[in-house]
């Protein structure tokens, strides 16, 4: 099992990237679990035909300890297993603690042992603003962090903050930085600006996702882009990114070989499994 977390400024395209990556991994025959870590609970929206799934926190509120794993995780497009942490009523409670509670609920139900995913993606809201939002990169969760950014200044500042948090937490046995995903907004000198960021944080651009209107077109149909427009430039770059991520899974990971074996042997089967 290999686990990654996707971070980045709000609205930068994390969920679109995460859902597309999940599809790309599933196309390779890998079992994928995508966990949305955002009170808005829209990470896996287009893996379920544009419909929201019940969040872990709202299920826990209703069923408490009687909530079973199948009440928390739902199968979506291409057999991708999906969970949304959810969050408190807007303006109340504590969203960070909510993410921690959702993670604890999955742990208590031995989610990873039972579901046996090959790849887990955590799609995390915005910045690493508190302990709860750092949960996905703590020991036992993601091994690598990928940051999504555009060339816009605010996105770059957020990316730098996230990279700093990852570096600060290194001593605690947290995840390492896997790379920066450039999601273009077509601002001037976009690649150069993100390359400067990468030099500062000692990382590199691992994917250059084109601005693509096909994403909005796909959303209109309730489908993920990978399903609606599988041959689009965006989809092709996402598949290349998926390959890169698998190739750069931590060397120490025993599962690295297994990931490749699964992907090689079962390559094409997932493409036919979309329920939509």
């Amino acid at each position, binding site marked *: 099992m290999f686990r990654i977390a996707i971070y980045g400024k709000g609205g930068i395209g994390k969920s679109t990237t995460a859902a597309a990556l999940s599809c790309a991994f599933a196309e390779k025959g890998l079992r994928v679990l995508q966990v949305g870590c955002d009170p808005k609970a829209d990470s896996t929206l287009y893996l379920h035909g544009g419909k929201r799934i019940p969040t872990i926190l709202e299920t826990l*509120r*209703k*069923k*408490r*300890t*009687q909530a079973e794993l199948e009440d928390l995780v739902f199968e979506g497009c291409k057999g991708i297993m999906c969970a949304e942490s959810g969050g408190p009523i807007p303006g109340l409670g*504590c969203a*960070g*603690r909510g*993410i*921690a509670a959702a993670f604890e609920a999955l742990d208590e139900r031995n989610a990873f042992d039972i579901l046996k995913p090959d790849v887990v993606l955590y799609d995390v809201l915005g910045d690493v603003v*508190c*302990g*709860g939002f*750092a*949960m996905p990169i*703590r*020991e*036992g969760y993601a091994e690598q962090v990928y940051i999504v950014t555009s060339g816009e200044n605010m996105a770059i500042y957020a990316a730098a903050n996230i990279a700093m948090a990852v570096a600060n*937490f290194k*001593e*605690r*046995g*947290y995840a390492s930085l896997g790379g920066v995903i450039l999601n273009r907004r077509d601002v001037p000198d976009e690649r150069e600006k993100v390359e400067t960021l990468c030099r500062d944080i000692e990382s590199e651009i691992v994917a250059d996702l084109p601005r693509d209107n096909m994403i909005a077109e796909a959303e209109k149909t309730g489908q993920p882009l990978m399903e609606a427009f599988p041959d689009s430039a965006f989809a092709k770059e996402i598949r290349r990114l998926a390959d890169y991520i698998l190739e750069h899974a931590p060397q120490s990971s025993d599962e690295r070989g297994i990931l490749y074996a699964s992907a090689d042997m079962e390559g094409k089967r997932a493409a036919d499994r979309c329920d939509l």
Partner: protein
Amino acid sequence: MRDWHVHVFTSTYTADVSGVCSAMYELGGMTILHDPDGCNSTYTTHDEPRWYGSKALMFVSGLDELTAVLGDDDVLINDVCAAAEDYKPRFITLCGSSIPHIIAFDFKGVAHLIEKKTGIPVLPVPTNGLRMYTVGVGMALREWIRRFADFSLKPEPKTINLLGVTPIDFSRQELVDAMKTAFEKRGLAVNAVGAMGESFEQLQKVCRASVNVVVSSAGLLPAKFLSDKAGIPFVEGTPIGSFMTDKIAEAVLQSEKDGQNCSVFDRGKYLAKAGNDEYAGAEKTNLIIIGEEVCSLSLAGAAEKVLGKDAVIRALFPDADEGIDEEALVDYINAADAVICDPLYRNAFGRSHAKLIPLPHEGYSGRIFRDDIPVFLGDGFDIKAFIMGM
């Protein structure tokens, strides 16, 4: 699932943090309770009978508001490192109360950092101060075993560990000795006791046992861990009187043979429904037993031997998160002929005519009735005399 429980006249069971401290007390480590202090003194005044008789390194971190809000973990890290430098403990246990829980304090990460700075093993035990002691004891023992047990040892036949043993359930060493004597009399060697009257070195040899005996629900987590990791099966049951000790001894031999986990009591038969959707009022009973889960169910089995198979006997025990539902508690007391319980439950009897048979429990009433706790374990306990008041 009901998410409300009214507690008007019942006390609360000891919290998970006290369970951690209790389990670690004699193993030579230093325990850090990450908390603002204050009401944690109940650990020393009510939950820990050994406090004034022996030394142990138990510290409260003194977490304050700004440190919590700013997530300034360095305050704790520096304090623990300084204390470790002074006292040179063999290991450090880091547990916490509700405030660290709410700010998602990073137990594992901080444990890494302290271990790196001091070179002393640090066990992260992420308690939240909201659950029962059984959870804290279980988590602490599981973490200790994960870190220190010698997994290369091979199980020896007719050798057992007793898991879930702390003064919170078994108060005095005399009671633990009674359990050990009863099993040894039946040809079962007691390898290690987790963790009361036990040394660090002996508990490290926990994998020498062929079967674990879970004598209170606090022992379930380490028992399940050892079952999964080392293939050592477990038997649930408290050796209350000769009859139950015989049953446990038989079950141990069977588990040793077939490798299966089992209980020596019929949970479905004795379980009193309470505080959930299935609860629809108490049934008429001859005897209701209120207390810790494994002890109460075992006592129910022992009582049936005395009262006969037609007697209606039920065990009502606290949920680790919710405690005991007070409405159900009162219903059951009113519908019972006799109740075995901690004397502090007398408040719940009201106008009930049920006979209260006192069995004080340190985890419920603390030190108040400590001197009145009978040696209810092993062959010396006459269950008939206890129930009939003879």
